[in-house]
Each structure stands twice: as C-alpha cells, then as structure tokens.
C-alpha cells in the first residue's frame, strides 16, 4: 500500500514559511521494545497538522519526546531553526512547546488561574526578601481572565479545578499554553473524551490559536475531525514515519490504507471448519451509561469471536462487565442459558466463564506468588480438603497444565515474575483452563509476547475452540483479529458498529469501521452477513 514513499516530510508546497518545529528521525527504545524507530514531523505557524497511526504506531512516544518527558536515543529536533535538546518538561516549556494530554493533568485543589501559572506565578516587583517570589494573586487572576477572553471561553479563573469537565480542563491547559506564549501546541487525542458539542467548542479554540499563529499538532483517531480541522497530515506505522502531505486531495481511505499498510497476505493460521454448537454466551442490550450502549452479542460453543475497535472504544469494559468486575446499568448476560447476577465475578466463574485480563502483571497474576500457586488460584475450591489446600494436589495440577501448555519454568515454586511474558500469559491461561470453562474471555492475549509464543497462544486458542470452548477475544492487533477469529465484532465509541465473518474481513474494512468511516466494502459485508445472531450492526 504505497501511498507515499518513506521519505522524511517534504515541504508541502502550500506553506512557504520555515517550520517552527522540525523533528527528524527520532528513535526511542524502552529496553528491547522499539517504541519509535523513525519519527519525523514538521510543524508550521498557523497550521494544524494531524498525526495519525494505529495503536502502537509510536505517536505517544513522539508526543512525549516533544513534551520533554522522554529523551530520544537519536534524531534531531529544531525549534525556529535552532537545534534544541529537551532534557525535561521544563525545557520543552521554555522552548515554547506545550502539550495537552487526553486526560489533562491539573491540580484539583488549586484555582484555575493558579493551575495555569503554577511554577511561574506573576510576582510583585517590590519584594523585601531578595529573590523572594511573592505571588501577585490579582495579577494572576487578571492575566488568566485575559487569556480566557482571548480564547472566547468564559471560565472563572478563581474557582478551584476540582469538578471541571474534561473539556474545561483542556481549556485550562490550552490557556496555560497561551499564557506561556507557546508557539507549538501538541494535542494528544484531545477529543477522545469529549461530546460532539465540546469538540466543536474545542475546534473554535483551535481555530483561534491557528489564526493567532500557533503551530498545532493534532492527534485523533476520528478521521472526520482530522478533515474538519487540519491542513496537513503525517501518518506513522510501526514506529516509523510513513507519509506527510497536505490533506487536500487525500481521502479517508487513503489515510486508513497508509495507517494499516502492512502486507495483508499473511494471516496467522486459522483453524478452519470448526463446528460451532449451542450459544454459550448471550449478551443482550448491555449498557453502562457513558461507557457502552446496547451491546448484544452471542458466542457459540467452539467459536472464537473477536471484539475489535480502537483503544477506548469500550471493548475491555464490555468484557469486564460480562465477567462481573464492573457493574452495568441495563441489559442481561446469560451463560449456558443461565442469567448471571450483576457485578459478581464469583457468579460469572461459577457459571463457567474464565477471564484473562489485559494487564497480566497487575490483574492476571500475583507476581510474587509461585507458578504453581498462580495456576491453582482459581481452582482452590477443588484442591482443598477440610479447609486446607493440599500442596500435593496443587503441584500435580500445576505440573499437568505446565506440560500441556508447554510452559517453560525453572521450578514450580519459583515466583511467576521470573518467567518470560509469554510463559506468564500461559500461566494465566492455565489458571482458567484448570476450571474447565465453557467460555473464555481473553483481553489482548498476546500483548508484549514474542512472536514464537504468540503463535503458540493462537494455536492454543484454536485448540480450545476445537474442544468446544467459546472464546471472546479482544485484541488491538488486526492480524491477530483476522487470523484467529471466526467472527469479528467491531466497536466504536461504546457501540457495536459492524460485524464481519472470517471469510470476508479485511484489515481496511475493520479499521474503517473502528474509525467510523463509511467504507463501501464493509457496508456491503454487513448486509451480507450470516443471520445467525441478532447482534446486527447499528450505526
């Protein structure tokens, strides 16, 4: 999918002026993980520049380099034509770069004005202690009010920040950037948590910034927003720069193709011709206000169903609600025809659900406990006798599962933290398989796992399905989604928006649905879809 070559950003012909900020070939690794391989971006005054890429494409790392939070291993950064290094957030600030994060980082106990001026509050000129920095509160309030006036947002500078909506918190951050005289404003998914009206108001503010000559880097997964507010675009994929261009003349499909971009021929093996049986999981109109709405889905025995979508689309939240970790406001969950109690993992487990959470270290395992204790953790009831856990039974169970899943370990009594990520994930799987679940929910089953073990986990899931277990898999990796699953449900902003069968799914179609693009192909597929479930796509 070559939309453009791998060249560093070319000068878009529209903007003649020299860039305010130039980042070239920035690279950053965390241990063995290469988060950013070749990050390049140019920002110009009076221009809103979009930065696009899938989850894990390296956008956040690039942002944190610009924010001075991470220091690149290599690459150059120029601000106003001069080379700069940013050893910390304060240096980025001093260089005129302000970053607005998706979740703003305000001080809830301080006033709005103080939040804007923290660390650089205006002080009174006549100070009787040398170097004393007595804060001039009135000047601070006045300046803050002036900034909000400039932005056209009537926010009270004297109120404390606690209780501000995310949108207002962002306005405070933008105000901070303005009062800092920042020439470069980076917005990392500012619209992710905003309502439509709030987005429009943010756009007004961005237009104001633009007209006042700021250079804005705008990150969003919503392409319609990108087209609404941006003039130029940079696309990243797998840690590298893919494309920089004027937005005019590009279509949403061009951008999606540039983002997905990898060779589409290879798919992980798919255990073909599985015979699916009775539904093991039926979710009906499940709703949690503000998180997900009206989710209906069915997983049959022997079937692998993938729940795809962008991070934050509500995938994991649905899974957590099904397993009873989070409460939900409306709807029903039934396993093997039996309705589950709300918000009770115990009842979910009793009904035969296993849950492999997204965060293995925090939620899947007790890192300080031994391999065998972790494997046995969900089955303690079967292993106890007279209230005591029989160590021999625990050991037997653990060694049995370790052999079946080919877990590589030193001793069963070693702490599970000594195992590699892939083997840790197998321990989590073993823990649930020991309970012989009829439904297994796996959230990002191969995150942070090396390629070899990844394939093993995929095969294991296929085998499990073959033995009649229903599997609901959440994954951000499109090849995994497409390769492993029989059916793909796509979520976007808390609702199910599309469904594909294994046969017709493509990365572009899934991605387009996840990003809310009306892709003709996926529309067609949707109508084409088998009618064996009632969870049609509602858009």
């Amino acid at each position, binding site marked *: 999918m070559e939309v453009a070559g791998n060249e560093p950003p070319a000068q878009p012909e529209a903007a003649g002026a020299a860039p305010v900020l130039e980042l070239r070939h920035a690279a950053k690794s965390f241990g063995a993980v290469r988060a950013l391989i070749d990050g390049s971006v140019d920002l110009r005054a009076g221009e809103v520049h979009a930065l696009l890429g899938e989850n894990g494409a390296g956008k956040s790392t690039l942002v944190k380099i610009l*924010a001075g*939070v991470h220091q690149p291993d290599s690459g150059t950064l120029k601000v106003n034509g001069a080379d700069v290094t940013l050893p*910390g*957030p*304060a240096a980025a*600030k001093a260089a005129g770069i302000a970053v607005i994060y998706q979740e703003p*980082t*305000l*001080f*809830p*106990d*301080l*006033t709005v004005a*103080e939040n804007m001026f*923290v*660390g650089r*509050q205006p*002080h009174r000129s006549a100070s009787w202690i040398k170097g*004393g*920095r*007595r*804060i001039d*509160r009135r000047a601070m309030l006045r300046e803050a009010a002036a900034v909000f006036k400039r932005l*056209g*947002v*009537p*926010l*009270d500078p*004297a*109120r*404390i920040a*606690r*209780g*501000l*909506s995310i949108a*207002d918190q962002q306005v405070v951050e933008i105000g901070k950037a303005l009062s800092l005289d920042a020439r470069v404003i980076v917005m990392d998914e500012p619209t992710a948590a905003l*309502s*439509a*009206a709030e987005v*429009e*108001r943010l756009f*007004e503010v961005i237009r104001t910034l633009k007209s006042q000559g700021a250079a804005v880097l705008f990150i969003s997964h919503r392409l319609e927003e990108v087209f609404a507010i941006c003039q130029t675009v940079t696309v990243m994929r797998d840690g590298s720069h893919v494309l920089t261009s004027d937005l005019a003349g590009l279509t949403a499909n061009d951008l999606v193709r540039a983002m997905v971009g990898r060779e589409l021929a290879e798919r992980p093996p798919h255990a073909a011709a599985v015979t699916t049986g009775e539904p093991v999981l039926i979710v009906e109109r499940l709703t949690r206000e503000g998180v997900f709405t009206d989710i209906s889905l069915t997983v049959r025995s022997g079937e692998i169903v993938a729940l795809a979508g962008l991070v934050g689309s509500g995938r994991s939240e649905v899974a957590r609600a099904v397993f009873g970790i989070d409460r939900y406001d409306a709807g029903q969950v039934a396993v093997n025809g039996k309705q589950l109690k709300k918000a009770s993992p115990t009842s979910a487990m009793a009904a035969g659900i296993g849950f492999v959470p997204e965060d293995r270290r925090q939620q899947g395992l007790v890192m300080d406990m031994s391999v065998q204790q972790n494997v046995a953790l969900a089955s303690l009831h079967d292993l106890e006798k007279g209230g005591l856990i029989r160590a021999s039974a625990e050991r037997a169970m653990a060694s049995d599962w370790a052999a079946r899943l080919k877990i590589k370990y030193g001793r069963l009594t070693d702490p599970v933290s000594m195992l590699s990520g892939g083997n840790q994930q197998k321990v989590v799987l073993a823990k649930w398989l020991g309970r012989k679940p009829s439904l297994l929910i796996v959230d990002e089953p191969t995150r942070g796992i090396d390629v070899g073990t990844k394939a093993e986990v995929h095969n294991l899931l296929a085998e499990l399905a073959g033995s009649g277990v229903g599997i609901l898999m959440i994954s951000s990796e499109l090849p995994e989604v497409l390769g492993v699953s029989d059916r793909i449900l796509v979520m976007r902003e808390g609702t199910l928006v599309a469904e594909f069968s294994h046969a017709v799914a493509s990365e572009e179609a899934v991605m387009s649905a996840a990003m809310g693009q009306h892709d003709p192909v996926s529309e067609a597929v949707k109508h084409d879809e088998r009618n064996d479930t009632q969870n049609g796509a509602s858009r």
Partner: protein
Amino acid sequence: MRAAIVPSRQQQPERLRQSGLAERVFRIRESGILVVLVVFVAVTTGVQHRFLDVSNIQFVLVDTASFALLALGETMVVISRNVDLSVGSVVGLSAYLSASLFASHPGLPIPVVFLAGLGIGLACGIANGIMVAAGRVPSLVVTLATLYIIRGIDILVVGGNEVDANQLPNAFLDIPKDTVGGIPDIAIAVAVIIAAGAYYLRTYRSGRDLYAIGSNPDAARLAGLPVGRRVFTAFAVSGAIAGVAGVLWSAQYGTINSTAGTGYELQVVSAVVVGGVAIFGGSGSVTGAAIGALLLTTISSALYVLGISSFWDQAIWGLLLLVAIALDQTLTERLTSALRKRRTRHE
C-alpha cells in the same frame, strides 16, 4: 457547524456565586473547628468556672505553643502528600542535648542553645528529606524508621541519665512563664511564626508548589516543578522546627530523660488533621492546624479541670480525628458535586 455554544454558556452572576462557594467551603473548614472550640470552652466553663482562670488559660497557651509550632512543620509536610513521624523523637533528642549543653556549659547564652537545637533538628530533617526526595522512599516508611533510629540515638546518648531543673539557668526555665500583658511570650512568638508560615505558604511560589505537589504529584513533575527540592525543604523545615520545639520542651518541663517527646508525633499529626489539612495533601492551612493544636490541648485541660479520667482524653482525640476525616471526605464530595453542577451546560 453546530450551534455556537460559546458565548451564552456562562453569565457573570453565576461566576461570582461560584468563587463565593469555593471560598465559603474553605472557610468552613477552619471556622468549623473554631466553633467546636468555642462550644467546648463554653460548656466546660459552665460546669467549672475555674476553667477560664487566667492561670489556666496561660497554661493552655503555653502547652499549645510548641504543639502548634510542630503542627506548622508537619502541615508543610502533609500538604505535599507526605508525613513526618519522626518529630517526637527529634523533640526528645533536641530536648536532652540542649539541656545537657546548659548542664556542661552553665554560662551559655540562651539563643545559642536554641540554635543548637535547631541545628540538631535540621540535621534530622535533612536526613529524612534526602531519603524521601532523592531516595524516592515513601515518607511513611522513612520517618517511621527515623522515629526509631533517632529515639535509639537518644537512648544511647542519655543512657539512664536525666537533666533536671536545677542544672538549668533560671532565665531559661522562665521562658514559658514570661508574659506580656498576661499572654505568655512564647505563645506570642509562636503566633508570629505561624502567621509568617501561613503567609509564606499562601503567597510564595515555593509555598504554593507544596500544595501543587500534594494535589497531583505527577502533574507537578510534568509542570516542571522542582518536586524533590520542595519536598526536601519541607522535611528540613519540619525537622528544624522540631529541634526548636525540643528546646522549648526542656524549658517547659525542666526534667529531661530519654522518654521526652515519646508519641508526640501522632498528637501532632492528629492536630494537623483535626485542623482541616487533608491527609493526602493539596489543601489545608497552617492556621487550621494551629487551631487544631489549640483545640486538642484545650480538651486535655478541660478534662483535667473537670476531674475526668485522662482515658477519655485519648478517646475524645480519636473521636475528633474520625469526625475531622469524615467531615473532610463529605466536604470534598459536596464541593466536587456542587462545582460540577455549576458547570453543567445546557446543550
């Protein structure tokens, strides 16, 4: 384009109401305990008129002085989302060392001894500060350790000895007794120091930084605030203040052995929390903490005057702590939801 929401969102009068609300709630925190204090004094006096005798008031004020002083240092630490549990031990060490300084050098000027106490406390505070700020060890653990270590040093130095009043110069022992217009000198001095501390925390950048750090430590780092340096300073100041309080202790009690100041740290933390300083940092004031100290001392004195067992003393302190924390929680929640409602937009 959707409808323009921008200009009509908020009107002027509402804005005024908002800031009024926030301010009121903060004033409530301090005036709340002031009300409790007044009621308590009124009730006690009703039962036992002796309670408002000049000598008893003086006694309470002197007792409060070093307590409130310690609360000042502790407040700075707690506001930054830390805690200093070593102050009791620092008081003990400084009390003994300063008193024995008089015992071995009888002619020593009193200010020199105060400076010595301050130095001892500062050294302890610096040790705490380095471990918390540079070593990134939770302050609860660090100061719990130094609580024992400093007490251990104290016991090693003191052994079975004690310094008693006739080894101390009369001028020194008179410090708690001297009054100006009936008000004890040290109460005045401490009030001035506390006023200065309150002013500093309100109006100086480094003071406000402590609030910011306690309110959201990650944001403080992202904002480029010198988090480590500020936290270090808070601990150093708290230590230095504890050192001075130790010298006051020896002047007040005259007899100092290795148990001086034992358990004092928890009383100080209680005073701070009762005084409306949020235990997880970010809000509260030195003035509130000082009133907290005054309230706790008043309660002890009242129970004594009323002839009630001092068991009740501790029980009531504990009860007050629970009430203060519950109140803090409720107020924060109320405030949050109130502020949120004010911002709800009609779209």
